[in-house]
């Protein structure tokens, strides 16, 4: 058979996707062409042999052997790692698990936001958490009704005499300082020349020049 179109139709018949019109064409052509019919019969025979071929049973104990081989076959460490990293996972859940997960997330968010919002309560905790210590407002007062100016100098302002001027109210000078927890020495400077240790200080320390400085302990 030389006609490719007819051959194509024959194979479409064998594939089971030929239309009625094409069937008519090939039937008509086969009637007039014994060679074409012979080829069609030969192909149909080959296909029929395939379709009727015996389905062989799997050898006895096939499943048992597969299962035995499976149990013997421990996965290599590399395969276990690969499976852990790249293997598909099926996530199964129920409402209880979902609620528990939601509660854990909620508690975590609240806890983290509180940590950021509230300062640590003790130096030890602050140091442990690594967060910067928060400053505390400390009010210093000094009763000197006759003084014209009073300032405070200390470790907290590197002993600058004009950095922290105090304000006078009814004969009492006062200033609010924002200091981090710690121990500071300081002194008042009255009228820009007299260094006067705070008479209300808890303790004093020798200043190394024959006088004393007040000691301020800032605790939370």
């Amino acid at each position, binding site marked *: 058979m030389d006609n490719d179109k007819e051959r194509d139709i024959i194979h479409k018949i064998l594939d089971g996707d030929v239309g009625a019109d094409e069937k008519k064409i090939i039937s008509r052509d086969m009637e007039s062409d014994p060679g074409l019919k012979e080829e069609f019969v*030969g192909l149909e025979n080959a296909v029929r042999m395939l379709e009727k071929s015996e389905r*062989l*049973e799997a050898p006895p104990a096939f499943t048992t052997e597969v299962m035995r081989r499976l149990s013997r*076959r421990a996965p290599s460490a590399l395969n276990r790692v690969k499976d852990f990293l790249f293997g598909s996972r099926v996530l199964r859940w129920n409402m209880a698990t979902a609620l528990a997960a939601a509660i854990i997330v909620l508690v975590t968010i609240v806890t983290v936001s509180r940590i950021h919002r509230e300062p640590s309560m003790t130096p030890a905790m602050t140091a442990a958490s690594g967060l910067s210590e928060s400053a505390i407002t400390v009010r210093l007062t000094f009763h000197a009704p006759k003084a014209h100016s009073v300032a405070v100098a200390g470790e907290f302002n590197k002993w600058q005499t004009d950095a922290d001027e105090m304000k006078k109210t009814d004969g009492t000078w006062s200033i609010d300082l924002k200091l981090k927890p710690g121990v500071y020495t300081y002194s008042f400077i009255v009228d820009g020349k007299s260094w006067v240790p705070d008479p209300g200080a808890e303790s004093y320390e020798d200043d190394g020049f024959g006088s004393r400085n007040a000691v301020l302990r800032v605790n939370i």
Partner: protein
Amino acid sequence: MGTTMKNDQHPDEEAIIRRCLDGDQDSYSVLVDRYKTMVYNVAFRMLGDGDAAKDIAQESFIAAYGGLGQFRFGSKFSSWLYSIVLNKCRDHLRLVKETVSTDDIAGVRPDTGPSPEQAATANQGRNILQGALNALPPEYREVLILKHIEELDYQEIAAITGAGIPALKVRAHRGREMLRRILERAGVTHG
């Protein structure tokens, strides 16, 4: 065909696969039992040798179990098995570089089945067919097996082999022509 096997997805298969993924290896025996005939037959028709077919079929099930994590739920497990066993067969054929002369087609016999006396008549047709299949290039052979023995449509064959449908039809066309000529040369004029 002795037994028709339409490999529609069984409703319990996803559950079985999930149990296997959870470590329940014993559940896998259900799938092996269910598909052993299918896998063994494809391997046998591809290789024409009972021992090799058994080994390849078993290896295919073991490989499938090892790769269950990659199985795409929603696709057919049978299609996945087909692709695995065909790959194994291709690898095997590449290794042995099988060369079967068309003159030897009557000499191929599976190692299973009835005794030689009983098989004298019945096996002749089977052996001739298998010998003819062995003489085909593997890419023609696998299309004919999937299309005419396993009765799959071209769409599923395309999914299994990764080849396009037009290419598969060309392979089937050429494979059938070759098969016809081999069978006629062997004196088989009817099925």
